[in-house]
């Protein structure tokens, strides 16, 4: 599972360098995000611009990554590709996460 931190803080931006978040990588994904998250960041943004496909295991892994954050931290998502966006809307997970159209807009919003 390849993740790149493209901005240290705040928001911390973590780019997922994988085309798929599916059952083959769900556990590694969850652990990798947990390892990369900076304890100092109030807001963490997952840049999903490279991810073409997500299944319910991948969705669960993103939820698990969010639940693993500390109380003062928030997980946002950015740059969802069409199929990933569709899965978030179908499951109403788009009401749980703040979803930014682009990484730029995610960067622009002041941390809460």
């Amino acid at each position, binding site marked *: 599972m390849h993740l790149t931190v493209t901005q240290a803080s705040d928001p911390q931006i973590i780019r997922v360098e994988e085309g*798929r978040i*599916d*059952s*083959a990588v769900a556990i590694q994904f969850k652990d990798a995000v947990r390892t990369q998250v900076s304890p100092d960041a109030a807001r963490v943004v997952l840049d999903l611009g490279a991810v073409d*496909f997500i*299944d*319910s*295991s991948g*969705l*669960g*892994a993103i*939820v*698990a990554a*969010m*639940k693993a954050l500390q109380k003062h931290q928030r997980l946002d998502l950015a740059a969802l590709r*069409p*199929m990933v*966006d*569709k*899965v978030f*809307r*179908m*499951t*109403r*997970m788009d*009401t*749980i996460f703040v979803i930014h159209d682009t990484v730029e807009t995610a960067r622009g919003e002041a941390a809460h």
Partner: protein
Amino acid sequence: MADSQVTATPMIFETELASTSQDVRGALDSVSGVLGLSGWNAAACGVVELVLAEALNNIVEHAYRDCPDGHIVLRLRAGAEFADLTLHDRGSAMPDFRLPAGRFVDVGVRCEDLPEGGFGWYLIRTLAEDICYTRENDRNRLELRICRHTHDDFHGAENPRR
């Protein structure tokens, strides 16, 4: 995508895979390729891929309980209107020999109570046109039909309140 690019004659694809997530990935890639050759666009291919991923993950995780030496046979018949998927496996039967309900999972709850699973059958039931499950001679047979026109843009058929 112009309809004229969609082949009139259905394409048939058949493959066998082991009950591992890597084999599932391989099968999804193959099916996407066949559908692409049949003229299905990215949005419609994505839906077939998602439905198939959820159905295969269910076989790997539940019918074969994550045991990697299970055997799955996948057959796809892809035409201009429908993709018909048939999956056979020799794992455990579905609970009560019935398809799971796949009800909408309420996500309107506190962060710590958010579900990390349970979306698979909901996605299958929402996206597939027809679903048929039978258990015969210790074998599961799952048939799934996906309608191309319902899903040929990324915004179609996503209302989960049904």
